[in-house]
């Protein structure tokens, strides 16, 4: 073997290597240290490594976060053309790890399914099958998930021509096989298959639920998604790093600001630029307001679904005012496009702090109104309490994050587990509940809104009156306009940034933040060009929707509707 001394590994990577050396896998797994400890394994070793990572007491990587298929066709210095990149989190150790399953060239890309180790892998593997053409032997339901059944090819392969169009007709849309079976052998006259959606008012987006019901109870269900799929990840590959930002607004469009912050943080970490304190605080304040908005929409819509219409307006009124604040900052209410790599598009208006304070005054009133109307109302209790139950173990196994996970008793909040920006400076509580039912999720969200208000209040206290919001690095941030008009050098920087994009150094990075509905991760690969080589989003509601068909088994259709509301599934982010 080579005698060149490898650079020293970080503590977690060194620990994993130490633990691995006691197993027969030691010489077949390479441990590297990128932004995260990274394991490189062959597909044949993947099941054993997966079990080791989940079960070894020194690892305990129990939360499956993401599986990204990567096509290295146009990337230099990679071992194989295809790799499946898995991101895991260990709740006991509070650490992330990356596993790269290198799929050997010369054979169709295939790796064994990890579905029996982490049930959350189910839909992520279907996604990689659909978009990258990876095969997962052992997966019982390996079908396309985001693209429709008449789609030919794999969109995220680098040799796929994106200009092609595939049309799906009604005949191409397949119902699951089991739903047909029921029709054929309907022994019980009350057993029938019910199709809810795709365009149903209770789905709040375009989601198709196929449920088999025995009188009132759901005995089997399956959700079909992808109706809003526009391949954000492929679009990102054809844009500059900044040009992706308007697309991120359309992921979780209820709290668009948070997506943008999550994305630019990834790029900023790759570049190593520092943002002035004022810029970070603006992002934090508006992100927390967006979180309040997201929870307002979620609770309001959920209560509408179960018949409590009034709350909708009480919750939408603060949302309206927050939209006004966002519009005053950046010029748009919903699709804000406010952040830029290296800062913000434009400084906040002069009355920013005053408007924030006015909002802080008005929002608690509406929250307490809703609280008084709903929380102890027996009708609401009957609908929410004890329905949509998710136990702690199930929540972790299904890869849930955010309020869903916390309502099941796991106090995992990225803002606390890995404080980014200034979250460690603020005094706030993580809202949890051990019940794991729909009521618990409602209560967790209500409390999170109050905690967000508290965070904003503290952020405003330390908010500098004046100061820059952008980094002063002109390799990243556009120079000030006045300089561009006057100064040739500034104009050249401006021109290079617009025409070629920011030059992000080669490498890869996974950055994660707490979005309104869970851990939002961006896995970006740069080849040194002006745009991403590959950008993978870890959408928090993707595993939630995957879990939905398991949560509703045994309940009634009306419970399923109430549960769908508390999941907080946003179709724009789900289908990307």
């Amino acid at each position, binding site marked *: 073997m080579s005698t060149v001394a490898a650079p020293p590994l970080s503590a977690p990577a060194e620990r994993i290597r130490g633990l691995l050396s006691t197993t027969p896998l030691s010489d077949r797994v390479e441990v590297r240290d990128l932004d995260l400890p990274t394991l490189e394994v062959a597909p044949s070793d993947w099941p054993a490594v997966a079990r080791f990572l989940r079960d070894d007491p020194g690892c305990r990587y129990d939360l499956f976060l993401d599986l990204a298929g990567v096509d290295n066709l146009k990337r230099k210095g990679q071992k194989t053309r295809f790799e499946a990149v898995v991101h895991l989190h260990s709740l006991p150790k509070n650490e992330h790890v990356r596993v790269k399953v290198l799929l050997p060239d010369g054979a169709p890309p295939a790796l064994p399914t990890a579905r029996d180790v982490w049930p959350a892998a189910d839909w992520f593997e279907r996604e990689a099958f659909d978009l990258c053409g990876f095969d997962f032997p052992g997966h019982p339901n390996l079908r396309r998930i985001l693209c429709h059944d008449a789609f030919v090819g794999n969109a995220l392969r680098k040799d796929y021509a994106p200009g092609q169009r595939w049309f799906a007709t009604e005949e191409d849309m397949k119902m699951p096989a089991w739903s047909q079976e029921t029709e054929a052998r309907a022994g019980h006259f009350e057993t029938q298959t019910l199709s809810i959606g795709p365009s149903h008012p209770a789905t709040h987006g375009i989601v198709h639920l196929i449920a088999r019901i025995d009188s009132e109870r759901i005995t089997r269900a399956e959700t079909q998604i992808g109706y809003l799929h526009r391949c954000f990840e492929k679009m990102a590959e054809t*844009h*500059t790093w*900044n*040009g*992706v*930002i*308007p*697309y991120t607004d359309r992921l979780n469009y209820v709290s668009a600001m948070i997506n943008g912050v999550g994305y630019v943080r990834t790029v900023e970490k790759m570049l190593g630029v520092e943002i002035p304190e004022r810029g970070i605080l603006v992002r934090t304040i508006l992100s927390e307001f967006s979180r309040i908005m997201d929870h307002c929409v979620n609770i309001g819509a959920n209560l509408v679904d179960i018949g409590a219409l*009034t709350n909708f307006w*009480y919750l939408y009124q603060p949302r*309206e005012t927050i939209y006004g604040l966002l*519009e*005053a900052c*950046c*010029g*748009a209410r919903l*699709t804000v*496009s406010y952040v830029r790599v290296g800062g913000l*598009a*434009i*400084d906040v*208006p*002069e009355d920013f702090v005053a408007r924030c304070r006015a909002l802080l005054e008005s929002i608690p009133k509406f929250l307490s*109104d809703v609280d*008084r*109307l709903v*929380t*102890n*109302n*027996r009708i609401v*209790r009957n609908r929410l*309490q004890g329905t949509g139950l998710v136990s702690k173990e199930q929540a972790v196994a299904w890869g849930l994050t955010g309020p869903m996970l916390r309502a099941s008793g796991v*106090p995992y909040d990225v803002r*606390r587990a890995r*404080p980014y920006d200034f979250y*460690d400076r*603020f*005094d*706030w*509580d*993580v*809202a*949890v*509940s*051990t019940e794991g039912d729909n009521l618990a999720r409602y*209560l*967790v969200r*209500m*409390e999170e809104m109050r905690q967000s208000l508290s965070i904003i209040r503290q952020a405003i206290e330390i908010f500098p009156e004046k100061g820059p919001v952008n980094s002063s690095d002109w390799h990243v941030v*556009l120079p000030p*306009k*006045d300089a*561009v*008009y*006057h100064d040739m050098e500034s*104009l050249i920087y*401006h*021109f290079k940034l*617009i*025409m070629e994009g920011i030059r992000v150094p080669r490498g890869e990075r996974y950055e994660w933040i707490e979005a309104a509905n869970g851990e939002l991760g961006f896995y970006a690969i740069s080849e040194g060009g002006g745009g991403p080589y590959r950008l993978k989003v870890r959408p928090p509601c993707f595993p939630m929707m995957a879990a939905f068909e398991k949560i509703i088994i045994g309940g009634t259709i009306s419970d399923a509707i109430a549960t769908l509301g508390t999941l907080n599934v946003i179709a724009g982010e789900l289908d990307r």
Partner: protein
Amino acid sequence: MSGIVDVGVRTPQKLTFAQRLYLPEILAGMRVTIGHLLRNIFAIRKLPTILYPEQKRDYSGRFRGKHILKTREDGTLKCVACYMCQQACPAECITIVAGEHPKIAYEKYPVVFDIDMLRCVFCGFCVDACPKDAIWMTRDYELAFFSRGEAVFGIDRLIEKPGIPVKDGYGYRPYYPGDGTVPPTDAAAAPVQPGDGERAKLREKGLLPVFRPSAPRIAAKI
């Protein structure tokens, strides 16, 4: 940093006898809703709803609506057809075809400047990208069309017409009066003196490259 709050414990899981009786809770709820009702009746002017289109929302000066092409004092476009906005546009909705300007001081000007308003996502990247202060946005958001072709706005519908006030006022732009941002002193508003055919002379001498429009005009599919 602080702790963890268990909302499941703080809010009792079991309702009290009075709460289970429906009626007291419903009356408590009615108090909230009737309170709102009375407040709305007696403070009807403060209602958050807007009676559009009679009444319009007062948007900020940063609103990102329909674009406007700024002009110099002599009414010609400030745009020099540098393609920066076309390149920066994430929705690829801007089509520019450059022409050779008769005045050598400008060299290029847009023969065609089309924005497909159905593709545009109103992100304001074009305003940020413009090095000549030539494109701004307005607060005009009332854009409705009878056909797709009609949604492609050319120079005639984008140019700021002298003497005619901009519909709904200016929106997103590089600087705002009274906002701490200084208007650029050299935003090329002053007209350049008429040329004396200098470019034609240069062309005759073969000192100018052959002019090629760089982008074909894309006709909207109807």
